[in-house]
């Protein structure tokens, strides 16, 4: 440890509390209301699809399409996941197949 125990505890505590704040916001604003506004219910239903699409991009954010290897390891593995899932419809095979493919590709064909 490079800093005092209390400073470290304070950093852990601040990180925890601020994380809680971000998660609690919608519940603090709307949790006590008798009726949740219709607009919020609508957003609650429409957002999951949009957020999942955003998270997929978020996971792939570091790929660079302008120079070698053009994010090919990621894109091929994504294709493997999609094809496996549409074909076998088994979540475990899709995850295992895609991840295995990715780990092989970054070691052999497209090393860092």
């Amino acid at each position: 440890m490079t800093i005092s125990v209390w400073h470290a505890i304070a950093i852990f505590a601040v990180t925890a509390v601020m994380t809680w704040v971000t998660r609690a916001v919608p519940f603090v604003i709307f949790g006590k209301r008798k009726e949740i506004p219709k607009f919020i219910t609508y957003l609650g239903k429409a957002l999951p699809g949009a957020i999942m699409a955003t998270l997929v991009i978020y996971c792939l954010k570091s790929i660079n399409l302008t120079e070698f290897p053009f994010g090919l390891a990621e894109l091929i593995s994504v294709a493997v996941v999609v094809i496996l899932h549409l074909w076998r419809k088994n979540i475990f095979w899709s995850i295992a197949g895609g991840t295995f493919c990715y780990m092989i590709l970054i070691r052999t064909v497209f090393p860092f």
Partner: protein
Amino acid sequence: MLQAATGTFIFNKRTADQIRGLVEINKTVSFAFKKTVPIIFGYMFLGIGFGIMLQEAGYNALWAFFGSLFIYAGAMQYFMVPLLVTGAPLITVALMTLLINSRHVFYGLGFIDQYRRMGWKYPYMVLSLTDETYVLLSTCKYPEGIDRDKAAFLISMFNHCWWIGGSVLGVLIGTLIPFDLTGIDFCMTALFIILLINHIKQVKAITPVIIGFISAVLFLLIMGPDNFILPSLCFTVLVLTFLRRRIETVKEDTAS
């Protein structure tokens, strides 16, 4: 004699009820457990990654345990380690946490009505709403005979356990792992893709998915990989607001 017979009957009925209760709890537990199995690998290995970083910075397993128990935010815990090493001022830590976790402010919106009825579990459900738990619970279809609230609670808790377990393991034995695990984090990407495919098949209204996708790519190109997610989600909410009437009609059409 009659009394004894009634007594046995009551006893039998009570045991039967208890057994039935146990079977139902077991059903809910195994349902929730199965739902979180795809998370195990991702959370364990990402947790191990965090544990190794923490151990290298000179912190023991107790720190990893309490860190993962109370913070429970993957990306932020990774960012926290360099802050610990340099002894960053608390205000910097606070602002960075807000910035990195800001996307979470949107996650609760679909769960307000369900969570606030959950009594003592309410605060736990709110504070344990990570990316993965959010995606699992938003796409979860609860079959009959499964207690929805109990299952949601167990799913959140199992995920939390995988994460804590991973980080503690990371401190204890992370450096002993004999093979190179680089790239294993792709399993989270795969999970999001799979749940997105299932979601699209289920709801049929794919406008929100397209909006989220285009917005994310757009803001990634404009703002770069580090800061795009919050502006992208704000823009998504804005577009969803403008297209509300259209999207709601589509939903009703597919529902009927």
